[in-house]
């Protein structure tokens, strides 16, 4: 569930459509928009943007949810200015082209013809000088926290340049085509999957297993089992096996959903399965220790909760540690879940056995300690 929600926020399979609010001030006295500003807006709308026109007097749009608000303002006089500028540009190009031809022809042009060409060029230049034309500024307004505002400005600039070229009747001679290849690029949804799997296994152990064990003791099941030939090691291991199977099923479901919905990159290999098993052992062991160390089921659940929740949020399982202040990052490194999800991420997503070694070793130590503690603290007599 969480994976679906977060995954769709942080990058699903279809490229996002950016909403762009456009305020067009280029209107005549009857409020009709200029031809060129209208055409420009159409060009924007045919690109990655979904244009929403803001009429004069409309309030500044407000964000619902996570979508960023970006407003592009087209200045007054856009159309006339652009027409003038186009004429000026065309004149400049024409004059320059003719002068270049004259230069290249050299002596082939008789001197009197050359003089008459330059005088007419001067006449044209004088006419050009009388045309009012300058640079027009479109304003793009957006939040300082909007990380894609810069790229969006670039896209709008590109569209504007193409628009100007089209007005000059010139065609673009440089084109970029995108081709997809098979290299793996981590996306945020890839980052979250191992975190969720790890957090789930942790809560299953610290809250689920602990209250299960405690409830079984309250019901007398533990007494009944202890009066049979079953040993407490067998009992502990049977809980561990059930939890391991549950974890592996959870992992497959998460990967299946992740793959179907988000084309997630995770492929479980033998290393990630070992890490899953070690993590399950560790948290099942810890859960059993909690379950046997307090009398009341309610107290056990409360302790399990108060250990799980801070760990879930502070260990970097639910969001990247890099987003947290440095002292919290140090705190995270004291948490068992940190090592579990790091090891899982390195094996499952990054596919790097090297970087997984250290956290996996820590998880292995926790697993051993957890299981041994669980066995030795479980009371099989003298309750």
């Amino acid at each position, binding site marked *: 569930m969480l994976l679906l929600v977060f995954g769709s926020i942080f990058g699903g399979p279809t490229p996002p459509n950016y909403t762009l609010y456009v305020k067009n001030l280029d209107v005549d006295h009857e409020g009709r928009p200029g031809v060129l500003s209208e055409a420009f807006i159409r060009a924007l709308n045919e690109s990655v943007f979904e244009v929403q026109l803001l009429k004069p007097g409309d309030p500044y749009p407000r964000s619902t949810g996570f979508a960023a608000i970006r407003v592009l303002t087209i200045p007054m006089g856009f159309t006339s200015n652009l027409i003038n500028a186009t004429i000026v540009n065309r004149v400049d190009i024409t004059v320059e082209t003719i002068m270049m031809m004259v230069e290249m022809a050299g002596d082939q042009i008789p001197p009197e013809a050359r003089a008459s060409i330059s005088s007419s060029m001067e006449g044209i230049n004088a006419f050009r000088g009388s045309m009012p034309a300058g640079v027009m500024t479109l304003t793009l307004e957006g939040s300082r926290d909007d990380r894609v505002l810069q790229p969006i400005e670039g896209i709008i600039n590109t569209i504007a340049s193409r628009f100007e070229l089209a007005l000059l009747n010139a065609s673009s001679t440089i084109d970029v085509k995108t081709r997809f290849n098979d290299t793996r690029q981590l996306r945020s949804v890839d980052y979250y999957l191992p975190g969720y799997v790890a957090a789930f296994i942790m809560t299953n152990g610290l809250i689920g297993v602990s209250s299960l064990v405690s409830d079984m003791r309250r*019901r007398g*099941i533990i*007494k*009944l089992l202890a*009066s049979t*030939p079953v040993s407490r090691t067998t009992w502990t291991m049977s809980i561990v096996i059930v939890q391991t199977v549950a974890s592996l099923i959870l992992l497959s479901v998460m990967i299946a959903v992740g793959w179907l919905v988000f084309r997630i990159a995770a492929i479980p290999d033998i290393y990630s399965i070992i890490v899953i098993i070690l993590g399950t052992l560790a948290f099942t062991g810890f859960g059993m220790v909690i379950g046997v160390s307090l009398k009341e089921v309610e107290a056990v659940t409360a302790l399990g909760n108060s250990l799980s929740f801070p760990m879930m949020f502070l260990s970097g399982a639910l969001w990247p540690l890099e987003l947290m202040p440095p002292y919290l990052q140090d705190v995270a490194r004291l948490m068992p879940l940190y090592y579990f999800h790091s090891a899982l991420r390195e094996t499952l997503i990054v596919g790097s056995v090297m970087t997984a070694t250290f956290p996996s070793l820590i998880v292995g130590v926790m697993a051993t300690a957890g299981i041994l503690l669980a066995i030795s603290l479980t009371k099989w007599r*003298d309750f």
Partner: protein
Amino acid sequence: MNEIIVVDKLTKKYGDFLAVNNVSFIVKQGEVFSLLGPNGAGKTTIVEILECLRTPTSGVALIKGMNVKDPSEVKRIKRLIGVLPQEFNAIDNLTVYENVELAASAKGSRNVKDILEALGLWEMRKSAFSKLSGGLKRRVGIAMALVGDPEIVFLDEPTTGLDPEARRETWSYIRKLKKSGVTIFLTTHYMEEAERLSDRVAIIVRGRIAAEGDVRRLVSEQGGKTRLIFEDLGERAAEALRGKGYEVEPITDDRTVVKVSDKSEVFEVLSILRGLSIDAYPEIHHPGLEDVFLRIVGSKISERGELI
């Protein structure tokens, strides 16, 4: 009959608190043995020592000659016994069948079906445990104790908290069980239960055994006389009976007790009265464990298990 359980000078201390104080008794093979006592008397402590779940402070407890303190014998003892812990509740979200199967697999047994049929649980084997009535829940617990064909079954307060009907039903299953030859070790604070079910009983109060022995013998030796209760007997009749050596005591204004030792005395009392032209039909109160308990301990046990 041979002795299947021998307990000798058994003592258990929790810290400084003496919960079981120098207790000795035996249980014979195939009998129903009851530990009868009020709350906190030490019943569960003794039972759990016998189940190898508690370590005694001193003394000896032998199950079929094997010492419960000897780690090498504990596993063999555990193969012989079936246990219903006090206030036992099976797992809520498992079915009746699954719960009994859990106990069966712990004991390496597979006769789940036979047990369920014997206890009348087969029809409801697929019901979730949480959906059962109190009486049925306890019966599932008994099934979990009985599965695996144990030679000795320990039932720690099997009917506490049940309504009278469910209690009677449980008794009938315990009687059936006895017929199959199993030795049954019962704890209870219900006098009636101990008296109706057990062959032998040990009365335990504050960690000490107050009396032990064959139930009928205890009652006949310690229970006192049979009491005949008459309404409106009259002073003349009372005098005549006293003259023949009977104990006659008024209990209320119009009710009088005449104590007799056996049946022939009942008829004698009635014929004396007839001689005086008094046609009276008394209520007959046979002595029971309650009288034994009252006589030895000096108090009664309430419905909830408290000494009063």
